[in-house]
């Protein structure tokens, strides 16, 4: 079976032309064939998956689907609580942790009738990585298993790209959805801060943490976000805005859509590889051809955004894991130990200055986007590096293109914009205004449908 997109599968399932049990079986076959190489899963919940699929199939045959995700195989990053199923955060510290209750996002996906395939590999507590001193090995990139997936939602990206699942949950504190989406050639959106509840998900840095969908296409992500979004009293940062129809603008013309290009981010502040630059240039030309109005945008240097987000992240993470850092530091991976140690070197005054800078940067982005609908920049600077080629102190090696939108809380999607000379995917980001995810999906979908990047799966899985 050729693995369908979520949107294709939903249409076929609703039309009773695709069996959720057969689709789930195909995904399990792929897991069996490839997960020894890709290490995308921490736990495969095969019995639960088949039971979910049979239940979904019977209900759909009887009454039709209860949601567009009914009968769709999906996975959850292993920092998402699942009742009765281990949630290890890929850490030695939580090897025996079996939550009593589902995280809100897991519960909403279950209520929508999805099929839980298992828990997906993550960097430890969504930080650091790749680490080779954890209970399970790091995920490998399906386009070339010697290469990195990026992280921390590494397993979700690898599993989606290889068709082991049709969609999955990622979390994003500085790019942990968009980075892996970029390097694995899928779509992943970090929604507006507060749109998806964080309740029941292990924190990384409280004020930067976002939960979001990862899938093969932007349209798939929109369909998944529809199920996930909405207020939740269990999350103090949960947004109370009404949930719009995230697919409402998909297929609409881009005529009149105003797109800004943060050119200096990827051409000067951190110059990207030629294949990444070509992907962005091609996208700009395509958007212009489709009637969008294109202009350049200037913000503070990428390094300022990176410094602001990193100082906040270091401090909030050190606070979140302070007790274990004091009492069980050696039980963390070496990479996470180093990150936690950094917390000792950032003072309270440093943190407050970073949070003051954050307000200034957010104000700057709001002003820059006043007359725009979306802005674009790179998703990652290059193709995926080798798994053993990631710097020990990657936070200081170079700024990343994703953290500015964690600092701002604005919605941002990474989509595949082509392939580099090594045959690995490259990516760009499309960033919207707060709660305007529908416009982000409109632009991302228009790009995907006007290019052929979505027609190619990793050679490993055909």
């Amino acid at each position, binding site marked *: 079976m050729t693995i369908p997109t979520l949107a294709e599968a939903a249409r076929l399932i609703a039309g009773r032309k695709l069996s959720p049990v057969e689709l789930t079986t195909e995904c399990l076959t792929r897991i069996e064939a490839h997960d020894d190489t890709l290490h995308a899963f921490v736990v495969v919940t095969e019995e639960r998956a088949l039971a979910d699929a049979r239940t979904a199939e019977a209900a759909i045959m009887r009454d039709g689907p209860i949601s567009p995700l009914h009968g769709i195989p999906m996975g959850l990053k292993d920092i998402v609580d699942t009742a009765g199923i281990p949630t290890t955060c890929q850490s030695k510290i939580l090897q025996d942790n079996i939550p009593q209750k589902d995280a809100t996002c897991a519960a909403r996906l279950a209520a929508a009738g999805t099929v839980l395939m298992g828990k997906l590999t993550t960097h430890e507590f969504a930080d650091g990585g790749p680490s080779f001193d954890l209970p399970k090995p790091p995920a490998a990139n399906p386009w070339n298993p010697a290469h990195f997936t990026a992280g921390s939602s590494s397993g979700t990206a690898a599993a989606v790209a290889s068709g082991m699942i049709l969609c999955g949950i990622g979390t994003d504190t500085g790019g942990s959805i968009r980075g892996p989406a970029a390097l694995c050639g899928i779509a992943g959106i970090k929604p507006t801060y507060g749109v998806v509840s964080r309740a029941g998900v292990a924190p990384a840095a409280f*004020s930067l943490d976002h939960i979001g969908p990862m899938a093969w296409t932007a349209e798939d992500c929109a369909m998944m976000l529809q199920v996930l979004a909405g207020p939740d009293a269990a999350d103090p940062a949960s947004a109370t805005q009404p949930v719009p129809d995230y697919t409402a603008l998909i297929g609409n013309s881009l005529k009149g859509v105003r797109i800004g290009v943060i050119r200096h981010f990827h051409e000067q502040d951190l110059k990207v590889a030629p294949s990444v630059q070509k992907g962005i240039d091609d996208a700009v030309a395509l958007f212009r051809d489709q009637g969008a109005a294109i202009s350049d945008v200037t913000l503070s240097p990428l390094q300022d955004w990176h410094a*602001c987000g990193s100082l906040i992240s270091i401090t909030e993470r050190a606070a979140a894991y302070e007790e274990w850092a004091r009492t069980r530091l050696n039980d963390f991976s070496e990479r996470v130990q180093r990150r*936690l140690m950094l917390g000792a070197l950032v003072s309270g005054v440093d943190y407050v200055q970073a949070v003051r*800078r954050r*307000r200034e940067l*957010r104000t700057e982005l709001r002003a820059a986007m006043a007359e725009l609908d979306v802005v674009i920049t790179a998703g990652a600077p290059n193709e995926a590096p080798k798994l053993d080629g990631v710097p020990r102190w990657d936070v*200081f090696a170079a700024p990343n293109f994703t953290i500015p939108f964690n600092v701002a809380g604005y919605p941002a999607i990474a989509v595949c914009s082509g392939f580099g000379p090594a045959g690995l995917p490259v990516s760009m980001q499309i960033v919207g205004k707060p709660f305007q995810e529908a416009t982000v999906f409109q632009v991302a979908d228009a790009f995907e449908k006007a290019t052929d990047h979505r027609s190619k799966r990793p050679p490993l899985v055909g």
Partner: protein
Amino acid sequence: MPPTLTDPALAYLLAAAGLDLTDAEKADLVGIHDSLAAMKARVRQKRGHMAEPAHTFGFNEEDLG
């Protein structure tokens, strides 16, 4: 130039954080201190007292209920 991270200063900071590190780990931190100091410099701008933190909050309906 960023301030030097002396051994006593590092010892104080680690004690305050409750961290007990090996000499190799301490050397690792000393090695990245300049990079961290550069980040700290970037978030310090010339600004007035009304430049408040991002999450200074107002009272919502629940607070007033």
